[in-house]
């Protein structure tokens, strides 16, 4: 074995652009931190950001504004990372490039349960939302998977997405049916439903952390086996993967991350789709690298959308769910067209 082949071999381990992309992501991430602290109904300058972050004794108005934005910023990153990884997991499990929690109906299911909770059980706090959303997301996921696996050939990607789209449409109308006659619920629900990280505070962050950690660990531990699953079920079994168990665990991780984000920030669509596709396009399909980078890119995309919403909606703000839908929808169409061309 000569030296040349050793250096070649190093490249096989990590994708070619991995380090460059990691550095770029971290730079963008830093820019997002600054932008998220600086922009809003009141735009603050660099000095005030520094004062707000590192000089707790400075009590200027600007510094206080920055301090108030810290929690929101961190919360936004956590939501983005969770949705990015959730997308990567669900895409791998269904082996479908357009599988996103919102497309599989998972976050509509979460939303329905939260609305039911608000309407019939008088729930009103974020910690109660979480459990309702989680239950709704899991039941919807099982339901969609069940419908998708009926008939010959089991749960094919196409059947899953069709089942998800149909279920999602049905559940959305249920949400409307429950909500419209109840104006008080509507008020409470309206803001949540659009998807906003503006509500994020230290409480929601601490509620979020345990779920985020569990979901991320699942993603990291299942990545190598998901790489094998990407070659098809038969090839994966040949490589020693228990495909059923793997799907169950990885899907649970994906649903968990999406459900908790939905509970705390409302349904935010398309992040899972956007985050993973950008990464795959640059470094290829190796999930050991796609998953962590999707967490970072998800965080970046969500916080950029949030900042954009604050600038466009000034002096108020445009909820982040509106912004991601605007960016996401055309990109979904592009990806679908590309995927179709490949499939045909």
């Amino acid at each position, binding site marked *: 074995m000569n030296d040349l082949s050793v250096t070649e071999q190093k490249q096989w381990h990590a994708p070619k652009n991995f380090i460059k992309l990691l550095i770029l992501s971290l730079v963008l991430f830093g820019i997002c931190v600054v932008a998220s602290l600086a922009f809003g109904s009141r735009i603050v300058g660099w000095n005030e950001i520094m004062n707000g972050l590192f000089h707790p004794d400075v009590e200027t108005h600007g510094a206080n504004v920055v301090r108030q934005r810290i929690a929101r910023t961190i919360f936004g990153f956590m939501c983005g990372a969770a949705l990015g990884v959730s997308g990567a997991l669900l895409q791998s499990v269904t082996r479908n490039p357009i599988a996103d929690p919102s497309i599989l109906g998972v976050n509509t299911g979460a939303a329905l349960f939260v609305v039911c909770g608000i309407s019939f059980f008088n729930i009103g706090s974020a910690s109660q939302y979480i459990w309702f959303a989680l239950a709704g997301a899991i039941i919807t996921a099982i339901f969609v998977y069940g419908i998708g696996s009926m008939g010959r050939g089991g749960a094919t990607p196409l059947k899953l997405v069709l089942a998800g789209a149909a279920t999602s449409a049905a559940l959305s109308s249920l949400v409307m049916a429950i909500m419209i006659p109840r104006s008080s619920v509507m008020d409470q629900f309206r803001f949540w439903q659009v998807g906003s990280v503006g509500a994020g505070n230290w409480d929601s962050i601490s509620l979020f952390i345990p779920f985020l950690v569990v979901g991320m660990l699942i993603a990291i531990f299942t990545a190598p086996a998901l790489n094998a699953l990407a070659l098809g079920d038969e090839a994966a079994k040949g490589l*020693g993967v228990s495909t059923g168990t793997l799907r169950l665990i990885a899907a649970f991780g994906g649903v968990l991350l999406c459900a908790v984000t939905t509970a705390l920030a409302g349904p935010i669509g398309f992040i899972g789709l956007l985050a993973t596709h950008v990464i795959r396009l640059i470094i290829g*399909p190796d999930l050991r690298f796609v998953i962590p980078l999707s967490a970072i890119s998800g965080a970046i995309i969500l916080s950029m959308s949030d900042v954009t919403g604050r600038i466009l909606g000034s002096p108020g703000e445009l909820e982040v769910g509106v912004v991601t839908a605007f960016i996401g929808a055309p990109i979904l169409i592009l990806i679908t067209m590309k995927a179709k061309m490949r499939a045909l």
Partner: protein
Amino acid sequence: MKSTHAFKADHITAGYDQTTILHDVNVSIPSNKISIIIGANGCGKSTLLKTMARLIKPVSGQVTIGGKPIHKIPSKQLARVLGLLPQTPIVPEGITVADLVGRGRFPHQKFLKGWSKEDYEAVSEAMEIMNITEFADRHIDELSGGQRQRVWIAMALAQQTDILFLDEPTTYLDITYQVEILDLLTDLNRKYGTTIVMVLHDINLSARYADHIFALHEGQLVAEGQPSKIVTSSLIESIFGLHCTVINDPISGSPYVIPIGRHHSKLRKHS
């Protein structure tokens, strides 16, 4: 020479959903040899291969390796002994040759541990055997059908198993590539003693490349043995329903099946 594992399928009855395809099949795979399963469409050759490669759970009977039922062996451990190349594996979008071949190392890798020296060596060796080292950084989409199939076989080789199952590895390939793939598999068998079991459609290539043939008809094993001993016009007639004559392949001396058909025969008066 690799270690030998006695590999057997005992009284296998198997199929899909409610349809039983294989009926009470007994097969013992000769170690360090190339075995080829032949038979007409729908006779159960793929089902037999998939059952032996634990993709299908038999309704009754069991598959054993070294006397141990394969379903009792942890799946990852079994994957270090028994490799499989399915008929239509999926190419992940944008994957490079080296990455795909590297995925064959999955059963050898531990949780969260990076790539070991053995992993790198196995991958580079597999690419060398399949003659694809020069494509290492290329995307699979850019390769021809024959090159792609070499990449898939390299993936299975990187798994470094003693037994390798291949489900129709030459389907959709031009004749040149079919011969190339079968030659490479023969190299592998001769050099490393890998036990190879495959399903092939082409009866003449099967007769030339197989050390041992299993002939299936309607879910039952009707003949097995060396091609020169079992490939006769009566066997071909009974399993394919093809009226034919068998001559010796002028290159290899193995049996060569020539269909008779209804036209073109110069020997019509004599036959």
